[in-house]
C-alpha cells in the first residue's frame, strides 16, 4: 500500500451551472500537513468538504485511505469515521454537555463502552486544555473554547486525517492563538492535516506544503518555504502581497 492517504484525480464539481471545482488533482501523503489558501469563493472549502463527502463530486475520483467515495453510504460512513472535520462555525451540539459532545460518536458509532469513551474524551479535552469545562454546555463557553472542544470531539473518533475548514475565521484575534496552539500541538503529534486558513503564520510554522487555489483550480502547489520565498504564478504573488 502506498502512503498516499488521499488521492484526488480529475475531479470536477458543479453547483447547478456553476463549476466550483475544475479538474482537481491532489495527492496527500500520510503525516503531511497541507495548508490550502486562496481568496473567498475559490472553492477551497468545497474541496475539503468533498473529501468526506459532505458535498458530492460529479466527475473524477476521490480515494481516501484506499476506499473510493461512491454512492454507497456504508463506505461513506466508514470513511467519515476516519476523517475528522472542524468547522468554521464550531457546530457543537448545543443540547449536550462538552463531555457528551465528545463521547457521543465514539459510543454510538464506534460502539465504545461509555467508561472508555469518557476517559478518551477527557484525555483529548486535556490536550486542548478545556478538561475543566467538561460538564458545561457549549453555550456557556467562549468561541475559542468551543472550537477547541470541536477539535477534541473530532479527535475522539481517532481519525487518520483531520480537515480544518477555516477554523479561526469566526474568532476574536485573542482566541485565534489558543486554537492555533492546539492545532500546532496536533501537527507535532504527527496527524495528517488539511487546513483551509488565512493564517499565514500558521502555514509557515507547521505546513509541509501550501496549495493556492483560485476560481476552482489549484493554481500553485509548493513546499512552504518555496511558496513564500518565490511564488511562481502572478496570481499567487498578488495574493501574497495583499495578505502579508
Amino acid at each position, binding site marked *: 500500500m502506498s502512503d498516499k492517504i488521499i488521492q484526488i484525480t480529475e475531479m470536477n464539481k458543479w453547483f447547478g451551472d456553476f463549476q466550483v471545482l475544475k479538474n482537481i488533482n491532489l495527492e496527500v501523503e500520510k503525516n503531511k500537513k497541507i495548508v490550502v489558501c486562496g481568496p473567498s469563493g475559490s472553492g477551497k472549502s468545497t474541496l475539503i468538504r468533498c473529501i468526506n463527502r459532505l458535498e458530492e463530486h460529479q466527475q473524477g475520483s476521490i480515494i481516501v485511505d484506499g476506499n473510493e467515495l461512491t454512492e454507497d453510504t456504508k463506505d461513506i460512513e466508514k470513511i*467519515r469515521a476516519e476523517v475528522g472535520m472542524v468547522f468554521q462555525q464550531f457546530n457543537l451540539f448545543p443540547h449536550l454537555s462538552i463531555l457528551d459532545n465528545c463521547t457521543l460518536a465514539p459510543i454510538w458509532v464506534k460502539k465504545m463502552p461509555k467508561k472508555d469513551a469518557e476517559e478518551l474524551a477527557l484525555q483529548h479535552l486535556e490536550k486542548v486544555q478545556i478538561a475543566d469545562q467538561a460538564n458545561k454546555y457549549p453555550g456557556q463557553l467562549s468561541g475559542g473554547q468551543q472550537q477547541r472542544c470541536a477539535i477534541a470531539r473530532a479527535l475522539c473518533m481517532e481519525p487518520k486525517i483531520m480537515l480544518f475548514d477555516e477554523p479561526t475565521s469566526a474568532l476574536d484575534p485573542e482566541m485565534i492563538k489558543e486554537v492555533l496552539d492546539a492545532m500546532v500541538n496536533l501537527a507535532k503529534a504527527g496527524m495528517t492535516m488539511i487546513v483551509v486558513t488565512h493564517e499565514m503564520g500558521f502555514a509557515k510554522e507547521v505546513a509541509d506544503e501550501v496549495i493556492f487555489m483560485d476560481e476552482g483550480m489549484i493554481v500553485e502547489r509548493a513546499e512552504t518555504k518555496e511558496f513564500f520565498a518565490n511564488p511562481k504564478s502572478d496570481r499567487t504573488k498578488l495574493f501574497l502581497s495583499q495578505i502579508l
Partner: protein
Amino acid sequence: MKNLNFLQPDNNNLSTYLYTGATLVSLSIFIVFLNSFFSKDVISFLPDTISFLLPLILGFIGLHLIRIDYSGLKFLDTINKNINTNNFNAFLSLLIVFVVIKSLPPLLSWFIIDANIAGDSKDVCTGSGACWTYIKIWFNRFMYGMYPNPEQWRINLSFIALAFLGCIGFFATEKFKKYLTLYYVIIYPVIAFFFIFFFISGGPIFFDFSYGIIAAVISIVLGFFIPSKFKMYYFIIVPITFYILLKYVFFYEELIELGKLEALEWVETGAWGGLSLTFIVSFFCLIFCFPIGLFLSLGRRSDLPIIKYISIGMIEFWRGVPLITVLFMSSVMFPMFLPEDMFIDKLVRVIIAISLFEAAYVAEVIRGGLQALPRGQYDAAKSLGMGYWKMHILVILPQALKLVIPGIANTFLALVKDTPLIFVVGLLEIVGMLNLAKTNPEWLGFAMEGYVFASVLFFIICYAMSKYSYNLEQKYKTER
C-alpha cells in the same frame, strides 16, 4: 411646608401629595364600591353627568398627585411604574378597576350567593343564580356517560392505576432513568391499552388471573436466587412457563377455584362517555399522533421520492379536510370498504381518525423545528460518521423537538378541545353529555350551568398541559 404646586407633584412635599392623592383614589373606589355592592349612590345629589363621572375624575386627580418619581417609597414606586406611568395609563388603570368592581356583584351572586346546590330535584332552584343541583345530580353522567353505575369502579380503578403508573417517572432512581423513555413511549401505552381493554371494556379475557398471579408470585420469589446476569431472560421466560405449567399440567379447571376472577361484564363503547371518554380519546390520540407526525415530518424531508411524496400527500390530505367530515367518514364510509365479517369498534376508528388528522399538524410543526436547525448540525453529525437514523435520533431531533415544544403543546391542546366533535359518530364525551342533559325534559333551561362546568373542567386540563409544556421547555433549556 414649602409652596405646593398641584400641577407638578414633587418629592419635597411627599407626604402631603401622597395623603391627598391616596384619599382621593380611595374615595373614588369607595363610591364605585358602594354603588356596585349596595346599590347606594352617595353622590346622587349632584347632577347626573357629574355624579356619573365623579369617581373617575377624583381617582384621576388622585393618581396624578401620587405620581412622584423616585419617591423613595418602594410600594409607591412599584405602583407608579406599573399602572400609573402617565395620565393615559392612569385613566386605563382606573377604568379597569371600576369595571372589575362593577362586574363582581352580578358574577358573585350568580355563582355563589343566589345559587342553589342543596336538594336533589329541580324544584329547589328558585333563586336567580346558578342551579348547581343540576350539576350535582348529573355529575355521575358527566363523568362516566352511560356506563352502568355498578360497574363504574372499573373506570375509577383503571384511571387511578394509570395515574399512579404515570407518576413513576418522578420517583425513578438514577439507575432506571435511562429506561424511562422506553417505558413512557412503549410500555406505558400498552399497559394503558390493557387496562382499558380488559377493565373498562371487559373485553374477552385470554389471561386467567388466578394462575397468572400465582405464577408471578412464585417466579418473583425464585428470582431472588437467580444471578443478576440472567435476570433479564429469567423474567421474560419463567413466568410464562409457570403460567402454562400451572394451567395445563398441574391444575385442571375443576380443581382450582381459588381467587378466580369472574369475567367482567362487557360494556360496549357506545355506552362510554363523559369526562372519562374525553380522557381516553385524548390520551390515545396524543400517544399515536406524535410518532406518526414525527415520521411524516422526516418523510417529507427525505431524499427518497416515494417516501417524500407519500408523506406530502398524507399531510396535505389530512390538513385539507375538516375534522368533522373525517369523523363522519370514519364511522359511515369506512365500514363499507371492510369485508363483511370484519368489525372495527367505533371508538377505535375515531381514535385512528383523530390521530391521523392531528399527526398532519404535528408533522408540520416538527418540520418547522427541523428547518430551524442550522445546516452545520447535520454536517457535524455526518462528519462524525453517523448515519441517517443515528444523526436524527442523537443530534437533530433532540434539538428540533425542544424548539417545537410550544407548537406541539398548541396542537395537543387543540386536540383535547376537538374531542367533543366525536358526537357526530354518537360518542358522547363530556360536552356531548351536556347536550344530552340539556334536552332532558325534566331539566330544561340549565344549559348555562352545564357549559360553565365543562369550561372549568377543560380549562383545568388544558392549563395543566400548558404548564407542563412550559416546565419541559425550562428543563431542556441549555442555552446561556
